[in-house]
């Protein structure tokens, strides 16, 4: 019997081609591309969201899974992904197969819509027009508010450390910037004064993190700065978590934040998960989820639940995006686009530093 001989691999003209083919095959086996559409009967959803919603979405997911189990007698697994709002939108646009997306800002939703991931009528959907939650920017300060920071003008004092994330990539960062801007416009100041005001606030920022949560870690865990410009929900959670080490201060005016949530149409259609995804989204408006939302510090959409948690959410004077610009899209490019207001403010700070 002739032994099977592999020696042929080492000679002959085609050996190099053979080597190339082997490389291809081995790499392919090792990386095993994922099949986008899962054929299994396991129901799975992926909710891609912005940074400070980790806990609330986790709780809602558990409630939804229980609910689904009860009425449809099937298991459903919901995965979560969190990060800076802008960077999460980038990932979805780049192909992260989200079934549900929620972002801090309208414009982040718009940017994935531009990649044709959403139905053309996306901006009229309930999750965008009337999101299940809303919140605002508040001041998170150290116990007893030692620097006595009451309102936006207090932030420009020398020696006050202001923690806020980078407006270029973080929703929290943009909204904090716009809140301060809105305060000045509301008081009737002109563009020039407003810019100078913003310059003086951002001069006081010692650390500019990539996302809301990273800022929170900087302020709360690493104890840097005197005030954090945080989402109300994040601030409430931090106060609870810190057991009295932190306090909330409500400024005289702040921006109304309505984080949009939507079913990512092109993904649910290719993954065949539309029914589940829409059920999931509707679940956010149910009483159970609304209560979870309120418990986690977001102001719920449902008026009855909001009344139930009245003591937790003192009334605030909130302004709409229309105060600072015509639309989110315009505000985005005017303020945070290349060489926009934010870049100019920072250049001014740098030039001040030079002199």
């Amino acid at each position, binding site marked *: 019997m002739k032994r099977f001989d592999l020696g042929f*691999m080492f000679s002959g003209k085609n050996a190099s081609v053979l*080597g190339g083919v082997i490389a291809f095959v081995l*790499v392919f086996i090792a990386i095993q591309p994922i099949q986008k559409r899962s054929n299994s009967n396991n129901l799975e959803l992926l909710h891609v969201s912005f940074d400070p919603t980790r806990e609330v979405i986790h709780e809602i997911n558990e409630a939804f899974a229980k609910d689904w189990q009860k009425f449809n007698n099937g298991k459903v697994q919901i995965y979560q992904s969190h990060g800076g709002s*802008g960077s999460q939108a*980038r990932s979805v646009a780049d192909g992260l197969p989200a079934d549900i997306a929620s972002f801090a800002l309208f414009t982040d939703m718009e940017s994935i819509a531009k990649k044709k991931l959403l139905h053309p009528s996306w901006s009229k959907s309930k999750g965008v027009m009337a999101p299940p939650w809303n919140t605002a920017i508040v001041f998170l300060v150290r116990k007893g508010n030692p620097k006595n920071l009451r309102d936006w003008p207090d932030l420009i004092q020398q020696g006050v450390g202001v923690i806020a994330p980078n407006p270029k990539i973080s929703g929290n960062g943009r909204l904090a910037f716009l809140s301060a801007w809105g305060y000045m416009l509301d008081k009737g100041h002109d563009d020039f004064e407003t810019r100078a005001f913003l310059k003086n606030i951002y001069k006081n920022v010692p650390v500019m993190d990539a996302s809301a949560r990273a800022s929170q870690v900087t302020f709360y865990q690493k*104890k*840097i700065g005197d005030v954090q410009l945080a989402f109300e929900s994040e601030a409430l959670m931090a106060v609870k978590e810190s057991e009295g080490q932190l306090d909330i201060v409500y400024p005289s005016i702040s921006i109304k934040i309505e984080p949009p949530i939507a079913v990512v149409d092109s993904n649910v259609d290719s993954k065949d998960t539309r029914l589940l995804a829409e059920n999931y989204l509707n679940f956010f408006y149910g009483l159970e989820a609304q209560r979870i939302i309120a418990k986690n510090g977001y102001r719920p959409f449902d008026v009855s639940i909001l009344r139930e948690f009245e003591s937790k959410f003192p009334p605030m004077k909130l302004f709409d995006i229309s105060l600072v610009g015509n639309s989110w899209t315009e505000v985005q490019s005017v303020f945070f686009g290349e060489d926009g207001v934010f870049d100019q403010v920072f250049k001014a700070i740098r030039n001040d530093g030079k002199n």
Partner: protein
Amino acid sequence: MMAKIEFGIRVQGVILVAFIQSNKGSPLPGLSLSLGYSVTYLSLIVLIPLSACFIKAGSLSPTEFWTIVWSERTRAAYSLTFTTAFLAALINAAIGFLVAWVLVRYEFPFKRFVDAMIDLPLALPTAVAGLVYSSLYVESGWLGQFLVPLGINAAYTKFAIVWVLVFTGFPFVVRTVQPVLEEIEPEVEEAASILGASRLQVFTRILLPTVFPAILSGFAQAFARGLGEYGSVIFVSSNIPYKTELAPVLIVTRLEEMAFPEATAIATVLLAASFGILAFINTIEIWSKRFGK
């Protein structure tokens, strides 16, 4: 018996080598196969992906490219990246030489253990390094509580970035200098001191010039590592545009703003710098081989 066969094989081998050297082209098998495999794999994993980066950056017009890579903010990021990496490499050159010297020349307890630990920064994930350094040096940290009142802030400052880069680049200089120091013949030093040179003169005139190429090579390796470092610096950098925003951090920022051409343009410049350093290291190695002996 075995030894005899082995000897026979060796002799035959030596004859064959002589034959081939006169004949060119090796009779050993596997050139095409191994070359086919390695070139394909290298292309799949490294070359094609990297060329994607260059082509993407190439889709910009020269003026666009220039405005991006030379905008004030990117310039500030480059200059911060280069200065911090340079400073860290410089510090590493000094302390790396010191540590290599002590490890080669002196005896002390646990020497083997200390020697082994030098390579830790290569084995430890950079994210862990960043996590630990940031929690050590903040005001409430183990070292921060002593340093911050002294006015030394090693978290969220340029100093913090330099210090973390010192950690990640620490082994390079030690490991390049160590073997060179070991190879210096004692006779050379002896001869010099017999001829009347002081210890300091021996050091500056004989030892330092001999190990200098090694220090330079280690310095360049630490520098290159520092230029690209990301995992550890994001934990300690405060990312203030123009002040403490590093180029790799800026690339990620641009990427997350969906500004792909900008991200790739900045990456291209960083790549070119790394190429340059790589070429520099190779030149030093060739140079030191040629003149070192």
